[in-house]
Structure formats: C-alpha cells, structure tokens
C-alpha cells in the first residue's frame, strides 16, 4: 500500500510541491530568486521562456501546474508577455489549489516582487504542510520512462530491466508511458503487433513515420556523440535498445504531451510535432521529454542511463537506473539502481526489474531519489505544435 495527497480531481500526488512558474524569460530571475531560499522545502521553478503565445506551451503549463504532485502555484509575469496568465490562473484555481499571480511591472519591480513572492510561498508552504497523506492504490500511480546518455549497455541491462518493471506494473493496472517515437525508428512494425487494435497499430506506425520524416528534414536523428563513444553505432541500434523499456505488454494507447491516460496499461507518447517542421528539434534535451511525461500525469520517471546522466526533474521524482557497471562505479552517488550488475553476472534482469518495481513504491511513499536528495529539479519547455490525437488512439476510452 502506498499513500498520497488527495486532489480535487480525484487523482493523488506523491509529493506536495509548490511551483513558482515564470511566464516569460523576463520574469525568470525574479522567480528563481523567490524559489532559492526554499529549494529544500519542495519549492520548485518551472516556466516558459517565450514572449509569444503557443497552444502546446499553454496546455503543458496547465497540465503541469495541476499535476497531482503539485500543491500550489505562484505565477510570475513581467506584464507585457503574450502568455495567457488569466486562463492559466483560472485553471489552477478551479483545480482547488492555492494560486497567486505576481506581475512585476505592477508590483514595484524586482525587489518588491521577490518579497511579495517569498511571503506567499511561506504562507502556502505552511498551509500545505498541514495536509496529510491518505491511502493510495497502486493503480492510481502513473509511471513514465525515458533513456538518456545511452550507450551500448543501455539496451542490454537498464532498458530491459525497466521493461520487466513495466510488465509488473501493467499487470497491476498501473498506467505506464514510454516515449520518443524518434528513438523508436526501426521498431514500428514490432510495436504494431503489440497494439490493442489494428487502427491503433496504424496510428503507431504513422507516428514513427512522422518522426523519421521530421528528423530527416532536420538532418540529425536523436543521437548524441556520447552515444557513439559508448559503443552505439547507429540510430536503429539505439532504437532497438530503447524499445526494450516498453516491456512486453499490449500497447493500449497512443497519446501526445498533456494527454492523461484514461486507464491502466501501456501507452506510447508521441513527442514529435505535427505538420511542417517548425520551431527546431522536437526535444532539445532529456528534460524536455521528462516534462512531457509529467504533463501526461507521470508521478515518477524511470530514467535509464549508460554514460551517466545526473539530471532530476521538477514536479516528479526521477529514479536513475544505471546500465553500465563502469559508469555506476564512477557515479554511484547519482544512481539509484545498479543494472550493470546484470552484465557482470551479479544480478538477473528479473531481479533488477523487481528492484525497480519495489523502489517505485518506496519513492512514492516519500523516500527521496538520489537526484532529489542532491537538489536536482531541472525543467525545460520550448515551442511545439500538435494536432489532437485521432479517434483510434485510445480504443479503451471510446
């Protein structure tokens, strides 16, 4: 049994975070200064840097500020930016959370806005700290997975171990989300065989074709130099390894950033924008994908790494599963799970999969992950554009 904080929409959170959200880069500094004294008290910084409105960014901010792990939100506006702060505030207020908007141009500038913001944070922290955790069923938990800093061991140990953990979770009707269609190029036909319906299978194949086209236009796949330094040679080799994170369950849905799984089961998150190539690379770094998994309701992120990523995230804890035993020995303080032990014959895939499943529940109950304890709370959000998902993408919901 796990516990969580009850929210008005019926979901439960495993953390009780106060978000300070800047609505344009021009308000970033003031927002960061407000957060800084309280950074060890579950007060975290997110934001959108652009001055011009974007429907994707607006939806992301709505989903993130009403995420079950979030207890209250302070919005930081410069005053003249295009972000619709009024509807965001209304969405948060309607969700039953404490919310305040500070407009720097109307609040007397940097210093006065910082003082007002810190006073609000202190009052709200005290209020939220009185909330008590209540029992929460495992099937109320949503878990996302990503791999980053991959190398030749990622697909041998950490990714398939996460796949085993996902199989344990979906068997308990938990919602599990895997992603990055651009890192699944070459796996689309196999994914199609796992789809709940033929129409969903077609949607999945089309989503990967869209990613391949998008990356071809950009002239660069989702492949970093460190991947090759770690023994990965080609994009399709990286894909095959990344795909192992999804386990062996039936794929019950295809969602886009900000879509919340309507039931338990395994979902593919399509992170590649629709339409003509605009706004540059789909995901400029791992935290952009983590933010999207969280916007889909993920309470916890399982992060497989071979080279050794150290990032965490705002809002949801990140469990670092280290694929490479050599990396683990170098970066042990940053790693939650030693999946590289599989390569050295010290553990089996099933043992590590079970360890990840058990650790997910421990972390849900409040134990800090390595990245949380080290203060990692990265966040990035940029411009994108999406069409809504098609009617075949969630066959169980219709």
């Amino acid at each position, binding site marked *: 049994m796990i516990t969580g904080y009850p929210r008005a929409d019926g979901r439960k959170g495993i953390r009780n975070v106060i978000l300070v959200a800047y609505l344009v880069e021009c308000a970033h500094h003031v927002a960061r200064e407000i957060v800084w004294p309280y950074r060890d008290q579950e007060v975290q910084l997110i934001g959108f840097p652009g001055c011009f409105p974007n429907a994707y960014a607006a939806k992301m901010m709505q989903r993130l500020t009403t995420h079950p792990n979030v207890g209250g939100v302070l919005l930081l506006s410069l005053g003249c930016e295009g972000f619709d702060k009024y509807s965001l505030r209304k969405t948060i207020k309607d969700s039953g959370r404490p919310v305040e908007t500070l407009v720097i141009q109307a609040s007397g500038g940097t210093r006065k806005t910082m003082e007002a913001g810190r006073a609000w944070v202190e009052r709200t922290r005290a209020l939220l700290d009185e909330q008590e955790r209540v029992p929460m069923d495992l099937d109320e938990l949503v878990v996302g997975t990503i791999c980053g800093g991959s*190398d*030749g*061991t*990622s*697909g*041998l140990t950490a990714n398939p171990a996460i796949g085993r953990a996902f199989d344990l979770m979906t068997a308990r009707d938990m919602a599990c989300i895997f992603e990055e269609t651009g890192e699944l*190029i*070459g*796996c689309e036909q196999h994914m199609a065989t796992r789809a709940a319906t033929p129409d969903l299978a077609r949607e999945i194949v089309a989503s990967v074709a869209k990613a*391949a086209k998008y*990356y*071809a236009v950009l002239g*660069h*796949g989702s*492949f*970093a*130099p460190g991947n*090759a*330094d*770690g*023994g*990965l*040679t*080609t*994009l*399709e*080799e990286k894909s*095959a*390894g990344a795909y*192992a994170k999804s386990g062996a369950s039936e794929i019950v849905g295809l969602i886009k950033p900000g879509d919340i799984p309507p039931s338990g089961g395994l979902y593919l998150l399509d992170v590649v924008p629709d339409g003509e190539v605009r706004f540059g690379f789909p995901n400029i770094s791992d935290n952009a994908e983590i933010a999207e998994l969280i916007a889909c309701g993920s309470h916890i992120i399982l992060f497989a790494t*071979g080279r050794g990523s150290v990032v965490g995230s705002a809002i949801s804890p990140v469990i670092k599963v280290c694929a*490479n*035993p*050599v990396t683990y020995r170098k970066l042990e303080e940053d790693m939650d799970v*030693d999946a590289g*032990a*599989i*390569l*050295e*014959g*010290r*553990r*089996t895939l099933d*043992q590590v999969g079970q360890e990840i499943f058990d650790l997910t529940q421990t972390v849900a109950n409040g134990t800090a992950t390595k990245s949380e304890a080290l203060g990692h709370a990265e966040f990035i959000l940029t411009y994108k554009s999406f069409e809504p998902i098609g009617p075949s993408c969630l066959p169980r919901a219709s």
Partner: protein
Amino acid sequence: MASSDPAPAPSANRDNRLLLLRPEDNVVCVCANLAAGDTVSIDDGEITVPEDAAVGFKLARYDLAPGDKVLKYGAPIGSVTQPIAKGAVVHTHNLKSDYLPTYTLTGDTRFIEATP
C-alpha cells in the same frame, strides 16, 4: 552488492565477457573492458582481440563484407561499409545506419559526420 547473489551466466556465449543476444546475431556485445591482445572465445573459436573494446561495444561474430546487414537483438542495425574480420570491433568506421547518419565529436568543438 554481494558477489554471491545467485545469477545465471548472462551469456549464451560460453565466454561471459561477451554476450550473444540472439542466435541469428552476427555481432556479440562486450560486457567487460577488453584490451588489444586479450584472448576471448566467440562460439567455439579462440580469438585474439585486435584492438581495445570497452563495455557496450560490439565484436564481429563472423567475417563480414561490405553490404552485409549487422544483426543485434535479432534486428538489423545498419549496413557494413568495410570488410570486418571475425573478432574486430564493429562501429562507426565500418558500419553505417540505413536511416540517418551518425554524428560524432572529434577533438575540436564542431559536430562532424562520422566517415564510414
């Protein structure tokens, strides 16, 4: 981590420094850092490793010729560009993607396309 944890040998290859993922694969995965000159077993043959090979890299299970598809996880991961001798490292110098080019960093700070 207790070294006495019960765990089966990770490899279908009898040398557990190398891992054969699927019977149809024509590469084996390196599970422990190997140095040039080390002797390893691939299938039933002893091979002297011609170059250093770090954990996560791949060695050719057979002699491979340009145009051959390399199979790992039983799936094609690209095409061979240079003759590869059994036991040699298979990487960006002799294998290219069938989808998008692979980019690597050299000593300076620019992205350059790996020349297969």
